[in-house]
């Protein structure tokens, strides 16, 4: 017996799938399933987070609805995935909050913070409302650098603590020993698998989205989003080093490393999320966990808005729009940080942990060690 109805259904499906196994070449979920004959709650949550939602097993399944066996693995695992995140949430009081109201909460948070920063600055210096600020340190007319750094450092730290607590809970649920994440071979394998989205290709032809025709667009958009995000993060990190190590203050010239990285990343982070959002709305409703749509859309929208406000700031930083735009950009980034532990961002973290475990299990299988 399982803790939830969703896990009961996931167990029923995995029992069907384990006696069929036609899908074992499509992704990591089915080989992981084949290592077991019975499934604990933790096993099912592990499968749920290992699933990349490529949809191929639904389209390829002779037992998917309207067949009486009613086998819909992508949707069931999507629901289980969202429920597992809620169960691992720290603090527990916030669990499930974002699934329902993700977009609204994110936007309200972003606008509140933007208004606060803008208001704070306006009270301190009315020139911010109309003034044109250029040259090194221009941004800090709005708010001193150290205040920004403290504010965002605290937000990021909070996010990291909350995320770490969630991973810890996931870890305990799937029953893995603590040294799992320190196995270098498994870690490296998981980094390669996650970095290439190896399991979002339907076994080679691309994932399935709107209908039974496979394609690679979701993977391409996800790469743009992920690596775009990575470049933006790198831009911020380089700028931080500039600031503290070389005392070089933002804004930087268009050719300088933080701006180049940020611009490239920003372009990826505009196209990627827009594409993912379009693909999401095209997706066959049979594959979708409707309850998570709000949370999914919120994260994609916040990434897009981060890029949009950042790019607007870059283009208009020499005009009077700089002040309001900077406040808005900082608000969006702040909201993105604090909502990370409660939304779709989690998929990357838990999937990575699941991939590490899968790599470890595969290595153990190859070495002939028992897995049950």
């Amino acid at each position, binding site marked *: 017996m399982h803790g939830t109805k969703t896990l009961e259904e996931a167990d029923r499906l995995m029992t069907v799938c384990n006696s069929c196994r036609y899908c*074992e070449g499509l992704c990591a979920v089915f*080989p992981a399933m084949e290592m077991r004959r019975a499934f604990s709650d933790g096993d099912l949550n592990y499968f749920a987070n290992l699933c990349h939602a490529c949809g191929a097993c639904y389209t390829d399944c002779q037992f998917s609805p309207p067949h009486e066996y009613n086998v819909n693995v992508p949707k069931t695992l999507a629901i289980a995935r969202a429920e597992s995140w809620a169960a691992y949430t720290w603090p527990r009081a916030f669990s499930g909050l974002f699934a329902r109201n993700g977009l609204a909460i994110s936007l309200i948070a972003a606008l509140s913070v933007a208004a606060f920063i803008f208001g704070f600055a306006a009270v301190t210096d009315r020139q911010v409302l109309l003034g044109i600020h250029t040259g090194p340190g221009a941004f800090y007319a709005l708010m001193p650098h150290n205040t920004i750094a403290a504010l965002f450092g605290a937000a990021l730290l909070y996010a990291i603590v909350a995320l770490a607590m969630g991973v810890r809970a996931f870890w305990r649920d799937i029953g893995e020993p603590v040294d799992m994440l320190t196995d270098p071979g498994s870690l490296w394998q998981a980094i390669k698998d996650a970095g290439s989205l190896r399991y979002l290709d339907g076994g080679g032809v691309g994932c399935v989205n709107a209908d039974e025709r496979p394609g690679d667009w979701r993977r391409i958009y996800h790469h743009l989003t992920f690596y775009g995000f990575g470049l933006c993060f790198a831009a911020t990190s380089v700028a931080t080093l500039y600031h503290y190590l070389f005392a070089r203050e933002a804004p930087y010239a268009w050719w300088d490393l933080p701006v180049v990285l940020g611009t490239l990343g920003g372009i990826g982070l505009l196209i990627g999320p827009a594409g993912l959002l379009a693909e999401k709305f095209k997706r066959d409703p049979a594959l979708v966990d409707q309850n998570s749509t709000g949370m999914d859309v919120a994260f994609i929208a916040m990434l897009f808005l981060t890029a949009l406000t950042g790019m607007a700031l870059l283009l208009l930083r020499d005009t009077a729009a700089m002040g309001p735009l900077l406040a808005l950009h900082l608000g969006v980034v702040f909201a993105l940080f604090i909502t990370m532990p409660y939304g779709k961002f989690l998929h990357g973290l838990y999937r990575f942990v699941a991939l590490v475990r899968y790599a470890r299990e595969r290595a153990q299988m190859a070495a002939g060690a028992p897995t049950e």
Partner: protein
Amino acid sequence: MVDLSRKYDVLVIGGGNAALCAAISARRAGASVLVLEGAPKFYRGGNTRHTRNMRCAHDAATEILTGPYTEQEFFEDLLRVTGGQTDEELARHMIAESKDILGWIVEQGVRWQPSLGGTLSLGRTNSFFLGGGRAMLNALYLTAEQLGVSIMYDAEVIDLEIDNGMFLSAALKQGDDEVSVRASALVAAAGGFEANIEWLKQYWGDAADNFLIRGTPYNRGSILKMLLAKGVQEVGDPTQCHAVAIDARAPKFDGGIITRHDSVVFGIVVNNHAQRFYDEGEDIWPKRYAIWGRLVAAQPDQIAYIIFDATSRNSFMPTLFPPIEAGSIAELAGKFNLDAAVLEKTVAEFNAAVRPGTFDHTILDDCRTEGLTPPKTHWARKIETPPYYAYPVRPGITFTYLGTRVNREARMLMQNGKPSANMFAAGEIMAGNVLGKGYAAGIGMTIGSVFGRIAGREAAQNARN
């Protein structure tokens, strides 16, 4: 929208592997092609939906096949399973053509993978479809659509106009109306008649009521019946079919692969008189699984029970339906209304006859019975470790062998022995040409792809002339 007013070069009736291979091959040969699939879109593809592999000859190991499988070895396997009841010329032709199919089918978008987990002993001979039979179908349909093949679903053909061995038109049911579809050549690839219980009862009597149909409920044999009634020569014994023992709890139709049981070799099988009736360890399972459907069909009430103990519980693939469990043999008998005393005696006699040996289910081991009728010649281990388990099984019919006789061109032969002017057949509807009885894993798909490809090519050629 499909234009039904025009005359197509090639009309394909059916929508499975054979039909799609025929449609694609005809289209690639330049013909205009219409496919009429009787099932709705989800159920398209007949029994191909439930398949997972194909048996093709090959002279060397490949990325997915562990070693060579020569034409001669393939033919010998076929001779063995059919007891020699095959058309040697056609069979050898099919086996020779099967070599090329390994690559041809990939060109049509189908992807291979190594032998599936839990399917012992097929890694050298059989190529598995990545994602299974429905994935294969999806790829074939996509290719056919991209090539410009017209496809209709829910397209039930209710009559064929055939004049002296020449196909003229098909009557297609469209709501309450009938539409006449004309074509220069016909490929019939509409499967066997296994889902037509009334037809099965003509040969099997009421026993057929206890048969379960493993695959599509749409193979009712209507096209086969029309062709045979209009002068096409029949081939095959109407009681012969690919039948395996499947879980008695499976749905009447379309239960698919997951209702099968691979546990026979690990235990004993008794009928509802609690008596054994056949050597459970005669040969390795992939060579024997296909005889158990007929064996169970011959038992009273067409039911049997696979009985094993805790020692074997995890020795075979997990099953959809869990085994029924009991602490003693008598308790187990009670759960199936078997005579407990008789079952205890059967098990005791079996246990007493088991000779010591070294158990190895991957080879023909030396664990056997002595002085028992019927014997268990391999993998015989005492059933003595509780809990005890049983799976109830019934005959699961995959497809029937009664069909239309064809020649090397997949062209139907008429009752007067002459080849039809423009009618071809491929797949289960003509499997009886090659399979007189028995079955070897994956051969149904070989028949479908090889003769489908030939039928399409020949039909296109025929339409041009």
